[in-house]
């Protein structure tokens, strides 16, 4: 039954293609920012509005920027992972409080614990746009020269921290 072989092969190929497609996550859009310098910002700090913080303050160090908000449900899920990471002291963690009210953000840190060296306050979400943020939480690993090396859209999990983030941070710390 030779004439069934080709259609069957095409059918199988189509099924394989669709099966792969189903396992992909359409939410994970590859960021064009990886390998590019971290966009410039200078924003007031969450707890001290008079003081500002900029990515330039971090040149020469490997650091992480985590975008969070008190209205973000997934951030709540992610928070213990961040607290654990902060406790390990492996990498300095900075927060970008995204489109949030100052008092809500502060209250959230007070009740949940504060894993950040400091958080900056992006009320209008402008810096968020520069960083291509579209689904809070998002996390960036930035190297000593201020280049974005990794971006995670969605919550960090203990597995991602162990398998991706920490090895990368170690490697960047050596370089």
């Amino acid at each position, binding site marked *: 039954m030779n004439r069934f072989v080709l259609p069957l092969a095409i059918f199988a190929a189509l099924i394989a293609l669709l099966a792969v497609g189903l396992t992909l996550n359409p939410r994970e*859009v590859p960021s*064009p*920012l990886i390998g590019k310098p971290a966009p410039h910002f200078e924003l007031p700090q969450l707890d001290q509005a008079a003081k500002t913080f900029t990515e330039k303050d971090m040149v020469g160090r490997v650091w992480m920027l985590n975008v969070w908000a008190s209205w973000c449900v997934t951030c709540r899920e992610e928070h213990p992972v961040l607290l654990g990471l902060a406790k390990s002291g492996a990498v300095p963690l900075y927060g970008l409080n995204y489109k949030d009210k100052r008092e809500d953000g502060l209250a959230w840190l007070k009740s949940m614990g504060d894993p950040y060296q400091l958080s900056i306050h992006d009320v209008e*979400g402008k810096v*968020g*746009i520069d960083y*291509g943020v*579209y*689904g809070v939480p998002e996390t960036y690993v930035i190297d000593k020269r201020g280049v974005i090396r990794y971006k995670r859209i969605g919550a960090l999990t203990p597995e991602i921290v162990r398998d991706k983030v920490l090895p990368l941070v170690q490697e960047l710390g050596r370089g």
Partner: protein
Amino acid sequence: MARLLAFLLVVSPAPWAHAKEAAPAAADPALEQKVMALAAELRCLVCQNQTIADSTAPLAEDLRNQVREKMRQGASDSEIIDFMVARYGDFVLYRPPVKATTLLLWFGPLLLVVAGLLVLLRRLRRRPPPELELTTAERERARKLLTESEAEPR
């Protein structure tokens, strides 16, 4: 029951109140039209099958504001598109650019048509030509049939 329905009708907000597109800043209708035209080319990353012109997601609103602001400053459409692509990647474009990674996307359908035509051509060629020639015996039979039917009384 009727009372309950009437109550619900009064209490629930009118469905069309939500259906409107994001309220344009009516200050400058010409600018607004340009903003919405460009916004209709850009994908909202929060609700991925909507443009930032129809989406009411907060991010879409922010991005529309960004487009409006840039247009006010005199940025061209292509400058604004570059701005968006630099942050969100080609994925924000509803019309992806033609480049190495999108060749299959652009020309895949053409490839399928060509493949279909080739298969069709091969089939047509392989089919044996229909036999038009009659053998002498067949001719004889046909002639006999024809003359017989003529001779038949009505």
